[in-house]
Structures are given as C-alpha cells and as structure tokens.
C-alpha cells in the first residue's frame, strides 16, 4: 500500500496538522500518520470521518487511480 499523498495535500490545503485531524475524528496522531504513510488501512467509518473534516469525498481522498498502479508496457 502506497503513501496517501491526497490526504496529506488536502490536510495541508486546510493548514491542518496531523494532530488537528486526529483530535477532530477522535483518533491518535499516530493513526493519521500511519494512514498517510500507507502503513494502516482504515475502516470506512474512519475514512468518512476524515473526509467530513476535510470537506472532501471518499473518492477525493481514498480512491486509488488504476493509472498509478499500472506499469509501462514494453
């Protein structure tokens, strides 16, 4: 699982720290850090809570494009 740069950029756009989001959704800062680094796969409940705080949809933050995973052929 790769890094979740979308979450990081959305957080930075709102000038929020990991601690701010963690407090808003009721988890620890380490959990948000693990999600951003791709070390933890959150439940849909936590995903929606994060999206509500950031004012984004699930697609905006957690949808992984297939193009990102495809490797060039040839």
């Amino acid at each position, binding site marked *: 699982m790769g890094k979740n740069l979308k979450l990081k950029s959305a957080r930075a756009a709102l000038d929020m720290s990991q601690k701010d989001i*963690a*407090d808003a*959704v*009721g*988890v*620890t800062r*380490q*959990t948000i850090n*693990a999600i951003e680094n791709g070390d*933890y796969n*959150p*439940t849909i*409940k*936590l995903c929606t*809570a994060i999206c509500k705080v950031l004012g984004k949809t699930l697609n905006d933050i957690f949808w992984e494009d297939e193009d990102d995973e495809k490797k060039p052929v040839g």
Partner: protein
Amino acid sequence: MKKNQLDEMQVQKRNSIGNQAFLLLMYLLMIDAGLYGFGFRWIEYPANIMIMVTVCAGIYLIRLINNHAYVGPSAENKRPVLRFILMVAIACSVAAGISMMLKNASFTNTAQINEMSAPIMFITAAIAIIIALATLLIKRSQ
C-alpha cells in the same frame, strides 16, 4: 468516535500484541513442562509459573506502550501530574519493599524460595489491586 477508548488502529495492535504474548506464555509453559518431564527443575512450582507470567505480562505491557496502544486519544492529551507522582511513589516503595524482603529472606536453597513464592504472589496481587483502586479513585477525583 468515543475518545475515551482506544482507536481502531490501537485496538488492532493491542489484539496482535496480546495474541503474541499469549502464544509466548503457552510456549514457555510447554518448555517448562518438557524440562520437567526430562527431570530438570529450574525453580520449584509456584515460582516458575509466577516468573513466566510476569515476564509475559511485562513484555505485553512494554510492547503496548511502545506501540502507542496503551492509552486512548483523550488520555494522551491529559497531564495527570498527581496520578503520575503517586504512581512513581508507589512503584519506588514497592521496589524497595521487595528488595528488602528478598535481602532479609537470604535464600540459600530452593526450598526457601518455594516457601516464599506464595507470599510474594499474594503480595504482588494485593499491590496490583491497591494500585488499580488508587488509580480509579484519583481518576474520579480529577
């Protein structure tokens, strides 16, 4: 989400660490039983179980704290100074008491260790209950 409990990642880590600690305890008990079957007794009965359980519980606790899975999100923001000071004082007094007791006991053979293991287990359990009650009372008062 409830802030006074562990979050979902902490729960996953706690479960994982708990399973590993349980398996470690089981393997240690099996090794101990195997050694006993071969006629090797490293410490007499109650003390060997006490040591193995204490080691596994210690490993479990240290790994929980190391992985940030011991306290929930709300507890991380609190600074319970009074509770911390009381815990340090109790820990120091317990350590001093145990060391004095062991020094006075001056074990010379395994029979004496066997005799002392029951009181040590009783005192350890009693101290654990006292610490838990003190923590509960302080938490309510704060």
